[in-house]
């Protein structure tokens, strides 16, 4: 829901309500006329009420469509800036649908892939130590 | 007969049967019959939705041994279908391990004692799902019956509204029940027809009012099918046949001669 669409929905609802009430009053008046009077025979809703109701419907439809924003994504890595693919809906082909995960650096199978307990920490430490020793020697 | 056909035709084309009798209805009918019925129906629908959520069966867990069993079966099937993505030696290793495990039935669930076929009616899973289905049916059925009785009991015997579209005289019996006039136009209907129209047409309203609850249903539908229900082959037989399939499985790895193929493709 964008701000504009909320305003438009409220406005079009007011328009519809008002035109409905006007139409109601018009028909109440019409019922009191004798059935053979000329204004009863070619009874028709006044043009302004018709226009008001139609405008209300069209504005409401526009507001419904305006309520969709283009999808934006906040990347987990890299520059902190919203990414948009210029789309309102998600693509359904699996090879396209996973593009978003790639773009924002999200790993949906992280609980399976992220396995720090498989790391041989002793080997890593030994490696680091030897690297440090070598580099220290070089500096000296 | 010919006349009724003609009148139906006139109804459809002009939307009014010659001179439609204009009735003047008490405006209080709208505010004390039409609105209450509508409000009650919408509220009942919402209440029903919440009750369904409350009595919905909680997601049941599958025993761990059962999961392990089916996961090994899936693993063998996956190796059979996607084995060409592995190099020959890796495939060989996996094949040997899987054949050994499956043929031994190492991870088969041990059925306790009685070896006779389980009675499907006593199976707790099945009766549970049947029970929840029955509950769902009841939850949608009872409120409808109650509201119909309520409308029929309190709001019967008068004309409530005029339909904006013509109907054939066949509907007269149903839509003008309780109104004792022989030749009133079918467009003037009693309150029970407003009940029917809203039963048919309230789905969009519920969707708009409860749209956030629909998203929850998706996860439930994606439960993996459980193995070994009545009528399905037993997991032991599946494992044995998979082991046989695996032993004779030929592996044609996609990595065989891949350098040559890539060079040919891009040269």
């Amino acid at each position, binding site marked *: 829901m964008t701000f504009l669409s909320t305003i438009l929905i409220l406005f079009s609802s007011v328009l519809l309500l008002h*035109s409905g009430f006007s139409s109601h009053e018009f028909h109440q008046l019409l019922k009191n006329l004798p059935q053979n009077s000329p204004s009863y025979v070619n009874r028709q809703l006044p043009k302004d009420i018709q226009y008001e109701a139609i405008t209300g419907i069209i504005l409401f439809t526009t507001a*419904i469509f305006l309520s969709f924003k283009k999808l934006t994504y906040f990347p987990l890595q890299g520059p902190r800036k919203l990414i948009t693919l210029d*789309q309102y809906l*998600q693509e359904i082909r699996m090879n*396209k649908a996973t593009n978003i995960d790639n773009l924002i650096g999200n790993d949906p199978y992280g609980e399976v892939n992220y396995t720090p307990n498989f790391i041989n920490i002793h080997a890593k430490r030994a490696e680091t130590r030897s690297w440090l020793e070598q580099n220290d020697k070089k500096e000296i | 007969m010919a006349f009724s056909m003609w009148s139906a035709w006139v109804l459809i084309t002009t939307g009014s049967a010659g001179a439609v009798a204009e009735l003047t209805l008490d405006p209080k009918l709208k505010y004390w019959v*039409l609105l209450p019925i509508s409000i009650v129906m919408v509220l009942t629908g919402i209440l029903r939705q919440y009750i369904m959520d409350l009595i919905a069966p909680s997601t049941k867990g599958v025993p761990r041994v059962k999961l392990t069993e089916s996961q090994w079966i899936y693993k063998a099937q996956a190796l059979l279908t996607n084995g060409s993505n592995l190099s020959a030696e890796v495939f060989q290793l996996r094949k040997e391990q899987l054949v050994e495990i499956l043929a031994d039935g190492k991870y088969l669930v041990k059925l306790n004692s009685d070896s006779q076929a389980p009675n499907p009616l006593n199976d707790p899973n099945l009766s549970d799902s049947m029970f929840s289905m029955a509950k769902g049916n009841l939850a949608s059925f009872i409120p409808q019956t109650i509201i119909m009785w309520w409308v029929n009991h309190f709001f019967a015997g008068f004309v409530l509204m005029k339909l*904006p579209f013509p109907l054939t005289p066949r509907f007269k019996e149903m839509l003008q029940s309780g109104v004792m006039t022989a030749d009133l136009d079918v467009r003037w209907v009693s309150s029970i027809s407003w009940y029917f129209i809203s039963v048919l*047409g309230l789905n969009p309203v519920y969707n*708009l009012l409860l749209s956030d609850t629909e998203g929850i249903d998706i996860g439930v539908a994606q439960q993996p099918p459980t193995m070994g229900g009545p009528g399905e082959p037993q997991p032991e037989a599946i494992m044995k046949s998979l082991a046989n399939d695996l032993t004779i499985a030929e592996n044609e790895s996609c990595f065989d001669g891949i350098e040559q193929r890539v060079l040919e493709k891009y040269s």
Partner: protein
Amino acid sequence: MNSINEVMSSEYVAGNKRVLLWVQDSTALAFGIGAGILQLESFNGFAMFIGGYLSVALLYIVWICRLQPAKYYQSPMNDIFVESFVRELTGYVMAWTFSYALVG
């Protein structure tokens, strides 16, 4: 490679359908209320429904789907035009009858 294009993300398929259903539901009800206010009768009312339904579907294809409904729906014609037709028609008739009776 045809098979790789047939793998769908079921989550997004359902999500897109929900968006479409929401648009169609709300517009069908609004059009029904409008038809009641305008006191349309019989054929005119149904014509207004058909017109509204089609124009909303076309607008949806142009605006939301960016003229590429096949990207977002498995069978675009069926999903957008056919699937919820009866549902929207009954909803429209209900709103139409309701406001017709209230106004008239």
